[in-house]
């Protein structure tokens, strides 16, 4: 064999080996811009509740994991196109998303909330502390009416392709002026600048921003769950990947039983957001 052929052969062989190594790993997609669920530290390394949980789940599965960064608005398409094998990105389980992908059981739950700048006329709305929209009771219906009246003609900002956008589009709070942004960071910026009268996202996303930026962002109205807000956050997996779905469900069971999920959740959220 000539040297030239040897080189080509060894390069091809090494490619094959590298390909196999990667095929063994589970690739998990996350956004890296939704603290405390997932975000990046100053060094650009992915951190957060879901990053730590992902490695824990992979240990239970017994396979290595690589975490892949992906913009939120392309998350589900990227999963379908096999850029990675699972989504762990604070993605709530909703009927709409379940048409495209399947979800593991939920591992954590978050409540959504409206946020405004201190001194806004929308501060201190007369509503219950929290409402569930799956089977709204009389108090929840009354709260939606209060919100409809308060938000009429107001600009409410949300991140694109989120449960929060779905809720505003559903018309449950009437016709509000919805503005959509690529990332939650941009929503926070425009809330602080006054372009948004209010913003809707996970309550923890706002408290995290208020704490880190020192801006007077306050929550208002009830916290939302159920209905358009889905049933907890789970691992998103391709529909034909039933094998991986079983593995994740089993791993979540084990991690929950051993107290890993609530331990990691408490570390990142400051309270036990696990489910």
């Amino acid at each position, binding site marked *: 064999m000539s040297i030239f052929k040897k080189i080509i052969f060894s390069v091809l062989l090494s490619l094959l080996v590298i390909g196999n190594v990667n095929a063994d790993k589970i690739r998990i997609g996350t956004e890296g811009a939704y603290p405390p669920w997932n975000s990046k530290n100053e060094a650009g390394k992915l951190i957060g509740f879901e990053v730590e949980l992902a490695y824990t789940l992979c240990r239970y599965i017994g396979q290595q994991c690589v975490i892949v960064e992906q913009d939120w608005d392309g998350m589900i398409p990227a999963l379908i196109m096999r850029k990675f094998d699972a989504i762990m990105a604070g993605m709530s389980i909703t009927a709409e998303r379940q048409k495209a992908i399947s979800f593991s059981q939920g591992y954590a739950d978050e409540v959504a909330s409206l946020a405004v700048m201190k001194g806004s006329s929308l501060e201190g709305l007369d509503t219950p502390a929290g409402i569930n929209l799956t089977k709204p009771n009389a108090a929840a219906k009354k709260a939606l009416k209060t919100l409809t009246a308060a938000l009429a003609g107001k600009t409410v900002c949300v991140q694109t392709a989120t449960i929060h956008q779905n809720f505003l589009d559903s018309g449950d709070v009437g016709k509000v002026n919805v503005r*959509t942004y*690529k990332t939650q960071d941009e929503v926070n*910026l*425009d809330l602080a600048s006054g372009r948004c009268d209010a913003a809707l996202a996970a309550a923890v996303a706002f408290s995290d921003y208020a704490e880190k930026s020192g801006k007077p962002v306050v929550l208002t109205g009830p916290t939302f769950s159920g209905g358009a807000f889905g049933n907890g956050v789970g691992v998103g997996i391709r529909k034909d990947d039933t094998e991986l779905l079983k593995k994740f469900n089993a791993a979540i069971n084990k991690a929950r039983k051993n107290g890993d999920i609530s331990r990691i959740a408490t570390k990142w959220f400051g309270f036990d957001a696990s489910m």
Partner: protein
Amino acid sequence: MDFELMANSFPKLLNAAVITLKLLSISLFVGLFIGLFFAILRLNKNIYINKFAYGYSYVFRGTPLLVQIFIIYFGLGQIEYFRSTFLWVIFKEPYWCAIIAFSLNTGAYTSEILRSAFQTIKPGIIEAGKSLGISKNIIFFKIQVPIAIRQSLPAYGNEIILMMKGTSLASTVTLMDLTGVAKYIISTTFKPIEVFIVAGGIYLFMTFIFHNLIKFLEKKYSF
């Protein structure tokens, strides 16, 4: 391929293309005057005026349009003092922020296109005007400007097409232009390929129109 989705999204995207065309036409209109103004400054003999005009086109041609939009929209919005001025009424709206960014950007390119067109005018033509006793202003507006516009048509046609594609960045500041609506449809259907093919087709069709319009003008005003 989900052809039903493509058919359903077509009318919505076509509607959104109207916003794209609005952004484009207003920006091009304003940009043309900015461009003409700075091109005239570039021809000025005063070194400070000349350098100022050069600096403007250097900065706006040397930075990405996306960065310019972000600075104008998110950047200025962070300055508390700026928010208390009357300018905030305009800068509060994403629509005007996009138009300002696009106009300044296309103005920079247009000024370069027009400057080089002015400089290609043969001195003999101007001298001929002078020898006939035509005033300086009339020579400029009736002789130099029409020739410069004709000279710059091919390059300006390119700029129109580049700017049309540039307006897709309006979606990054929450505007529902063609790209913005395409992204919105994708956010609920999770099918980017189908939707972007339709949106791309509409962009291509608009390019086709502009391209032929410029070609027609070039022919009509050829000499």
